[in-house]
């Protein structure tokens, strides 16, 4: 039997796995085939594991990860403790990348649609290459669409469209467009600052689920751990949804959606009125506002009526954060209303009042990092840009669209009608690791390598306060078990335009060669020559220089707002109207929907999995007659979807929270016909300031569809009873020992239990007094 190397690897994989699988019986189902490989790669020593440092550009951009490779296969991923972004942190979804790579539904053939109305059929790499080459000739109008990224692939995309005179766009569902815009106005840079939570004493956050999934959860959740160490800092969170960040907060405030700026101004109001901070800081803050003062009507009791947040809490928070090192920040749903930018701007401006800009424990501005061969943008294009762009597509002004890393058809709102636009583009070329709706609508499909097999470099977003470049290196070979004939995006584009370089590897090499030339003291890697330097970078997963920090001293403080802006909701003209708060869970807006590991992680709050559910207030649900697992329709002005109800106590009345990510129509056995696509029913409301989609400004009507399904959740279905109050999570007051708390709880518990006894005692008073 003749085998080439690739088949050998597959075969030995089969045999090893086969033997592993039948483990519980003493006789393996199949004899292990002992192969003697042709040559001996160093990571193929059986039983010896290697950890490689790399970076997952699409799933966890910027995070440094360590990948465990054994016998030529990827086994495990963890955060790189050495990397300044990840530090000791980690992202829950790291390990799901294994199944991006080893997905049974992974694409491994080139596909082509020969006529616009034809069907996709498999084709050879050579033919596909020919077609792609045709479609991207010099005279063609080309548009490249990717996920927001600042990396080598971004650089390649940008350079390529420049060489063809085309455009490069990015798209991200549930984007943070307003956040970038507001921060640019405040700090004069589109680079996000880093929030120094780990050194802070008081943290006040708005809308951003920064422990769960906002921008850089690995970094921020590790910061949370430090916030909760020794000098336990105070942490308040304002978000309509009860996310895990809300759960972690000492104080959770649930405002009416869209009123977050009022809370911030009210806090400012308290601080200014009570003169809790220095005059200098107050005047710094007030300078931002027209006429040097904030409008009237922000005293806490007025705000309580408009926001639903208790005035006492506002005052308490204001007093707390005005002492010590404090930081205030916003993101997520707060910046995704029609007044999203206003909200974000006002909230970040509070930092001037607290004097925490550019200071330890506050907001630390990041340097502008310009690196050759790394380009692109972390900020995606706004919906307004996209509306214009899609009009061009529809009009047939674009010959070729290259899409990578984003499922446009799935993730754009109904109102944009991407599918129709794509139908008018002559050549749609898509890269992907497995099928999705965009690939389904494409003309040429290129099976893409995963980040495990490819070279790349990326600038993390946000930077940790100094210059950092994350390295992505192949940890398994291109033809390792589990993958067949895939090609890297960067290499493919370079193939089409040879002036860009020779390969992704060469680009990365050039980047770090340049770094070696410029590296001064403070760099993370020290080496005598370029080769040694690159080796060092490969070992540590990137290069960073703690000396290269931001030199920006004076913020820009440009205020585009003359007056306060109210949020406006879309409407459905229905009596049962609810605010809809979408949120991203482990499925990463559908990117990981075909990954069983991602699908089956129970949502922390509801413990639900595998479905689209609706978090609804339990009291309100009871009034409406909605029980857990009831199938309900959500209808907005843009469409209607079906979900399962999950009533729980921590949702604001008249608000429902629904996760994105399900309802992908193509993608394989794990995601097809599962749940509903929430992104489709988002109303096309925009923030008029920036033109970005106000994805938290949709209102939906809730209607029972009749019918009830068993709700797929990890939580038990039988009602719980506690053994003792405080069990199993014992809560102690600061300074109290666990023993004391247990005793106290026990005391309470006994009181409860002795109710019967007490009744008796009431009848026989004489005995009871003796007993006590």
């Amino acid at each position, binding site marked *: 039997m003749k085998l080439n190397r690739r088949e050998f690897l597959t075969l030995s994989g089969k045999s090893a796995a086969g033997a592993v699988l039948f483990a519980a019986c003493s006789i393996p189902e199949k004899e292990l085939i002992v192969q003697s490989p042709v040559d001996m790669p160093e990571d193929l020593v059986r039983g010896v594991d290697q950890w490689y440092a790399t970076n997952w550009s699409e799933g966890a951009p910027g995070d440094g990860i360590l990948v465990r490779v054994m016998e030529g296969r990827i086994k495990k991923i963890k955060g790189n403790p050495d990397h300044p972004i990840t530090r000791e942190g980690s992202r829950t979804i790291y390990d799901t990348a294994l199944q991006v790579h080893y997905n049974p539904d992974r694409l491994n053939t080139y596909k082509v649609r020969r006529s616009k109305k034809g069907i996709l059929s498999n084709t050879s790499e050579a033919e596909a290459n020919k077609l792609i080459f045709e479609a991207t000739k010099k005279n063609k109008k080309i548009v490249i669409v990717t996920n927001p990224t600042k990396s080598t692939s971004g650089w390649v995309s940008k350079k390529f469209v420049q060489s063809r005179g085309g455009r490069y766009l990015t798209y991200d569902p549930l984007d943070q467009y307003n956040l970038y815009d507001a921060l640019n106005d405040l700090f004069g840079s589109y680079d996000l600052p880093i929030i120094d939570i780990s050194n802070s004493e008081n943290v006040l956050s708005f809308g951003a689920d920064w422990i769960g999934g906002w921008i850089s959860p690995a970094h921020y959740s590790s910061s949370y751990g430090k916030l909760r160490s020794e000098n336990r800092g105070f942490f308040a969170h304002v978000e309509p949804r009860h996310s895990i960040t809300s759960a972690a907060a000492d104080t959770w405030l649930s405002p009416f959606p869209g009123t977050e700026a009022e809370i911030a101004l009210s806090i400012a109001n308290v601080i200014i009125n009570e003169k809790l901070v220095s005059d200098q800081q107050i005047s710094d803050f007030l300078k931002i506002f027209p006429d040097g003062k904030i409008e009237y009507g922000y005293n806490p009791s007025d705000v309580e009526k408009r926001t639903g947040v208790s005035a006492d809490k506002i005052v308490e928070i204001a007093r707390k954060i005005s002492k010590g090192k404090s930081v205030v920040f916003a993101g997520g749903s707060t910046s995704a209303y029609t007044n999203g930018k206003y909200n974000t701007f006002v909230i970040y401006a509070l930092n001037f009042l607290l004097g925490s800009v550019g200071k330890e424990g506050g907001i630390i501005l990041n340097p502008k990092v310009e690196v050759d061969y790394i380009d692109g943008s972390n900020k995606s294009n706004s919906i307004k840009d996209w509306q214009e762009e899609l009009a061009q597509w529809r009009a047939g002004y674009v010959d070729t669209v290259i899409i990578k890393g984003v499922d446009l058809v799935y993730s754009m709102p109904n109102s944009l009608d991407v599918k129709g636009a794509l139908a008018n583009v002559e050549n749609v070329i898509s890269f992907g690791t497995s099928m999705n709706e965009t690939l389904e609508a494409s003309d040429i499909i290129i099976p893409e390598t995963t980040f495990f097999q490819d070279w790349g470099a990326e600038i993390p977003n946000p930077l940790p306060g100094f210059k950092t470049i994350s390295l992505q290196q192949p940890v398994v070979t291109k033809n390792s078990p589990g993958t067949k004939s895939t090609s890297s995006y960067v290499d493919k584009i370079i193939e089409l335009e040879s002036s860009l370089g020779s390969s992704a590897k060469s680009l990365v090499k050039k980047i770090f060669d340049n770094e070696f030339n410029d590296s001064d003291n403070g760099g993370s890697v020290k080496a005598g020559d370029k080769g040694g330097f690159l080796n060092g970078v490969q070992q540590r997963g990137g290069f960073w220089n703690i000396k290269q920090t931001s030199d920006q001293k004076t913020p820009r403080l440009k205020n585009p707002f003359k007056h306060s802006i109210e949020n406006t909701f879309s409407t459905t003209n229905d009596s049962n109207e609810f605010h809809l708060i979408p949120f991203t869970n482990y499925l990463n807006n559908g990117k990981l929907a075909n990954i069983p590991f991602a699908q*089956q992680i*129970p949502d922390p709050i509801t413990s639900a999995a595998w479905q689209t559910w609706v978090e609804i207030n339990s009291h309100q649900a009871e009034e409406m007659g909605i029980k857990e697992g009831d199938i309900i329709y959500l209808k907005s002005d843009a469409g209607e979807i079906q979900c399962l109800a999950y009533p729980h106590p921590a949702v604001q009345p008249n608000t429902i929270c629904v996760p994105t990510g399900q309802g992908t129509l193509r993608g394989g056995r794990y995601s097809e016909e599962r749940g509903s696509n929430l992104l489709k029913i988002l109303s096309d409301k925009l923030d008029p300031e920036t033109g970005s989609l106000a994805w938290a400004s949709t209102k939906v009507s809730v209607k029972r569809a009749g019918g009830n399904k068993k709700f797929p959740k990890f939580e038990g279905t039988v009602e719980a009873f506690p053994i003792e109050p405080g069990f199993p999570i014992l809560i102690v007051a600061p300074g109290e020992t666990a023993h004391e708390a247990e005793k106290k709880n026990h005391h309470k518990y006994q009181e409860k239990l002795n109710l019967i006894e007490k009744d008796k005692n009431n009848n026989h008073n004489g005995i009871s007094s003796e007993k006590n």
Partner: protein
Amino acid sequence: MVIENKDRNWGMVIDTDKCTGCNGCVIACQVENNVPLNDQNKFERGRVMSWMRVERYWEGEFPEVKARFIPIPCQHCANAPCEPVCPVYATYHNNEGMNIQVYNRCVGTRYCANGCPYIVRFFNYWEPIWPEEMRNHLNPDVTVRSRGIMEKCSFCIQRIRRGARKAKEENRELEDGEITTACQDACSTQAITFGDLNDPESKVSKLSKDDRSYTLMPHLNTDPNVIYLASIKENKEEFQEEKANSHD
């Protein structure tokens, strides 16, 4: 010899105050230990397998409501109720303070699972389904269990063995913190600490003597090796009021 003669007592300290409930430990454990995929049916039938689970408890009513989380792995009780009931000695206590589950010995009576008050033992109701491709990412250090047997958290014994072997080959003692469990690696907030409770200098034994330490269900006298640190109530004033009330 793989194991050193030194009697160890592996233990874990989990700080519930730091736990955010992100489920990172759950998935990390699942990947490390080849725990079968939980399909939707398993969620609907209450057969979800996760050696580490994060329980969520509600406290209070809206708006003063709070979700609290507690991660629960096998408690590795020194006085484990699951051990005496197994008819075939498939589960027992070893000299490293761990409660061991021997998969190839297990006949699947599920008696141990009834004995366990923490319900951390899981039964393979079905043969685990791993599509051909996904078998590639199975950890070769850990047996893939078939249908019909019990399994549970092993304190990542494969990592302990690997670490101890390495130390032995390098002719040195195991250092504190050298061996980490998968859940510990995945915990962003460093809420999980793992180490030798017999070593008074280890981080874990110092933490286990913290004022906030407690164990689950002490009234059953199971003497767990997993020690929890209590969460902290932020509101000091309220607490003092309560304290004043409780003393009358």
